[in-house]
């Protein structure tokens, strides 16, 4: 019975060679996005002014909501955290199928990146809330979903530390990552579809104008590359630790 040799991801090789340039490209793109957000994308109109005013060469008729600029980082970071969670669950499934310990390492590293980016999402989202509604926290659907995702990611790592047997730990971690991947979209859907308070609030989300969309896209691409670069870096470090441990075992 020729054992199908499952291709096991390994540190080194082209994915790692690409990692450093990806990190640099990511940093560049995000800073470009940062500048675009402030200089190029039109600010969102706030409350109407008592009278139009000439500012520079533009007739301004509404208050300019500057705080909305955080959005250009908040959304991409949130998307990347969800992509990282998807990878974590994918490698979790691969581990459950093949029992190959390497996939468990990939799943763990991907979940770490997911947790990192969820923390970033919470930071940007919370500060935006602080200004937008003047309060540090509201149980507003978007924010609660990310709080839940963060708690699940933290629970994932708490579980990993609570189990000693490596195979059992990897199996449980894989299962939890899959349940998390299923749970988060359901959480997204439920918190959005049910009006958050008894008197329904009309959603204020207007569409995105092309220039705003372009900025978001630039920052998104940048954040994806940063995420990828960090993933490869952490994966390489984890692999190094494992190879060292293997050497130690062999020495005894």
């Amino acid at each position, binding site marked *: 019975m020729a054992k199908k040799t499952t291709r096991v991801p390994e540190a080194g090789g082209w994915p790692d060679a690409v990692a450093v340039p990806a990190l640099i490209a990511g940093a560049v793109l995000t800073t470009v996005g940062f500048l675009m957000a402030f200089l190029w994308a039109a600010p969102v109109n*706030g409350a109407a002014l008592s009278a139009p*005013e000439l500012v520079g060469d533009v007739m301004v008729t509404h*208050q300019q909501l*500057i705080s909305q600029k*955080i959005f250009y980082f908040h959304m991409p970071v949130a998307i990347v955290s969800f992509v990282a969670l998807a990878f974590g669950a994918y490698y979790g499934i691969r581990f459950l199928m093949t029992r190959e310990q390497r996939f468990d390492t990939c799943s763990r590293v991907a979940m770490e990146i997911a947790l990192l980016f969820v923390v970033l999402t919470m*930071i940007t989202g919370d500060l935006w809330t602080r*200004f937008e509604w003047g309060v540090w926290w509201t149980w507003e659907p978007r924010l609660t979903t990310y709080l839940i995702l963060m708690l699940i990611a933290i629970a994932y790592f708490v579980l990993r530390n609570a189990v000693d047997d490596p195979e059992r730990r990897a199996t449980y971690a894989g299962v939890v990552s899959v349940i998390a991947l299923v749970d988060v979209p359901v959480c997204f859907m439920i918190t959005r579809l049910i009006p958050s308070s008894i008197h329904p609030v009309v959603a204020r989300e207007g569409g995105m104008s092309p220039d705003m969309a372009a900025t978001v896209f630039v920052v998104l691409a940048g954040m994806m590359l940063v995420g990828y670069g960090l993933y490869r*870096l952490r994966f390489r470090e984890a692999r*190094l630790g494992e190879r060292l441990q293997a050497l130690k075992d062999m020495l005894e």
Partner: protein
Amino acid sequence: MNPILADIYSTVIPSAPYLIAAYALVWAALLVYVIIVVRGLKKTEAQMAVLEEAVRAKGGD
């Protein structure tokens, strides 16, 4: 600054600190993560050194 201009910027000034804080914290968090990974690498290198000694000692005797 006439009242209307003041009105325009009324949302800008108070929100500025949060905006800066947000971006600063994002970069800070990414930096902390990289530092954690690098520290991990250093720890592994130290263990590598110990291992090399052990191998040399084993080979030597």
